[in-house]
């Protein structure tokens, strides 16, 4: 094998989170017959033994086609899914997932979701949605906000009690079974409901006047200004880009050390995307956060990330610094992905595109998982032996028997 000169721009930093041999299999729910008969259970190999390290203060991109396991990885890292196997190193301390989970709960990692339309509760104002992450963690200290929350809580309690009271009155009136009993019951219940309704609305308006200063500051920081106006808007009153900014604010307000961004811009228009990424980047720099940026769009990763890991059917195909991977892709899959993205240059033609589709993750192909589609695979043991992820250049790993620099 010919060795090329190693790349010079090595991204080195202190590791924040190291993921070691992470696996996640989902059992396939069979039909009734499969449930009764003791057949071998099938599993979707969503993540099949991946390892990578996220350094402090860097943007680590995880790219791949749909079904490659990138979103599952994100869900595991924020505690939405339990891994099948795997260990973690948090700041150089080896811990199990069970130990990592309290850390997640202790606001170490936060997520920004792909769909800005569903990520905010339609019945909460933007400011309240953000503030709620503080409430969950008992981080609200200032008296005004506490009072406001208390007020809101009080009005809800009153509504609840009035509902209970009216049920009680009805039951009483059944017992009396006289027309005067009906009269009392109906009057009391109606009055009570009316009173509580007015009280709730009143407290809603009361709410409107006081906003949490921390949330306001953050809103300005993520580009939602005038912050006070946005604070009291409902999600359906603002555009997708603004919702995504509120989502980012909600994740950032807890001061996480690791922010997981799961395709935060893929549902937004091109003209807004760069703006969101800009805000993310400046937040990352001012708060010194590490970002795990998950995307299917290599072009965005090219200009946004520091390091990148390309995944294919639950495995890492190639990993390394952005510059080194895009200038010198070693895995045929990475090269195909880069080729396949339509560029805004007329006449620019993609070549060497792989045929076929992403294989079924229940029965992944033996050997190299990419070999059925690989336009370079011509060696028999591509089909039988699984390639190891090896470091060909400093900080540039590839899982391929015949990386492109050797051909």
């Amino acid at each position, binding site marked *: 094998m010919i060795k090329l000169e190693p790349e010079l721009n090595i991204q080195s930093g202190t590791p924040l989170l190291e993921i070691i041999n992470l696996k996640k299999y989902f059992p396939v729910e069979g039909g009734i017959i499969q449930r009764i008969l003791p057949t071998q259970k099938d599993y979707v190999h969503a993540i099949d033994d991946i390892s990578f390290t996220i350094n402090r203060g860097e943007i680590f991109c995880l790219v791949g086609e749909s079904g490659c396991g990138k979103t599952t990885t994100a869900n595991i890292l924020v505690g939405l899914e339990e891994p099948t196997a795997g260990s973690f190193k948090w700041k150089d301390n080896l811990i199990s997932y069970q130990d990592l989970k309290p850390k997640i709960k202790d606001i170490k990692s936060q997520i920004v979701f792909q769909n800005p339309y569903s990520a905010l509760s339609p019945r909460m104002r933007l400011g309240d949605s953000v503030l709620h992450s503080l409430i969950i963690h008992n981080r609200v200290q200032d008296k005004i906000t506490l009072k406001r929350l208390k007020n809101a809580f009080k009005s809800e309690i009153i509504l609840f009690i009035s509902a209970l009271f009216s049920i009680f009155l009805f039951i009483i009136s059944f017992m009396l079974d006289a027309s005067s009993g009906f*009269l009392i019951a109906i009057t009391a219940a109606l009055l009570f409901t009316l009173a509580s309704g007015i009280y709730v609305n009143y407290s809603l308006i009361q709410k409107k006047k006081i906003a949490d200063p921390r949330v306001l500051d953050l809103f300005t920081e993520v580009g939602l200004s005038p912050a006070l106006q946005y604070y009291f808007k409902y999600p359906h009153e603002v555009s997708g880009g603004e919702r995504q900014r509120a989502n980012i604010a909600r994740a950032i307000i807890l001061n996480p050390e690791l922010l997981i961004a799961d395709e935060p811009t893929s549902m937004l228009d091109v003209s807004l995307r760069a703006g969101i990424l800009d805000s993310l980047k400046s937040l990352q720099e001012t708060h010194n956060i590490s970002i795990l940026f998950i995307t299917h769009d290599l072009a965005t990763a090219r200009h946004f990330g520091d390091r990148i890991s390309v995944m294919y059917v639950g495995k890492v195909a190639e990993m390394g610094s952005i510059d080194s991977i895009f200038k010198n892709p070693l895995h045929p899959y990475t090269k195909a992905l880069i080729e396949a993205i339509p560029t805004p240059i007329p006449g620019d033609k993609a070549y060497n595109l792989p045929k076929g589709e992403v294989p079924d993750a229940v029965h992944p192909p033996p050997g190299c998982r990419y070999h059925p589609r690989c336009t370079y695979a011509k060696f028999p043991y591509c089909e039988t032996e699984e390639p190891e992820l090896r470091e060909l250049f400093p900080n540039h790993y590839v899982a391929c028997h015949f990386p492109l620099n050797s051909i």
Partner: protein
Amino acid sequence: MDLSIRETRTTNGQKNIILSIFSFLRQNKSFTVGMFILSIIVIMALFADFLAPYGYAERSGDRYEAPSQDHPFGTTLLGFDVLSRVIYGSQVALIIAFSGTILSLSLGVPLGIISGYFGGKIDRLFTLIADSIYSFPSLLLAITLAIYLSVFGVLKVVSAVAVATSVVYIPTYFRVVRSQVLQIKEEGYVKAARSMGAKRITILIRYIAPNVLASTIAIIPFNMTDAILTNAGLAFLGLGISPPTADWGYDVYDSRALVKVRAYPWLILFPGLMIFLLSFSLSLIGDALNDKFNPLISQKNAK
């Protein structure tokens, strides 16, 4: 109410509750008409003692008197004033409607939320029970329940009817709420709350319940309508409220014979008309609320 406020705020920043209610009423004609009829019936029920010229079981005239100045709606076999009976009848109708609805709401919604959110065995059990109730013809179930509850003296007749009508509606709330919860559980904001480490109960109260409740609001008027009609049906079959009490359904039942209908049409006309008006107004309100709160429609608006 909440929704109307939000609307006015978005259009012109108006915060006045009364004004926003008016604008909501102006936009929704069917809601306004329904509310108008309903409030007249409610006033009738509340002030029956002052509005009714006679008592509901007071012999105020001869048998089968035609409508006249003294008895605008005529009299019954026993000489009771039909107008007074119609007015007092609204009390029973509303009690049945409200209490039946509140009972089924207070059971169906929490069960639906629990079943949808926690899933597993609880969910299977609840769904099984709800489905088996659902598979019964509703009137038949109500009849059976009403008979058992009243004959064995568990409850007074009025409450027996209310319970019977509410049991029929519990599975409806249960189903709607459960399917809503299953859907909302997968929404981004619930996942976000979970990833922030929120407790299950917080997620239920803060994120799931408010989004689910909106969809149940649209069912309430239909539930009330059904309760009234079921009560009328029970009364018509002779299983409802016992005779001296003023009840529209019973009055219709009592005068159903063809001979009577030909000779004394007012006996069946006015109580029947009242049943129609009340259920009609509730249906109008229900339709308007459905347009506002139906998850599909409101989602479209949100996007």
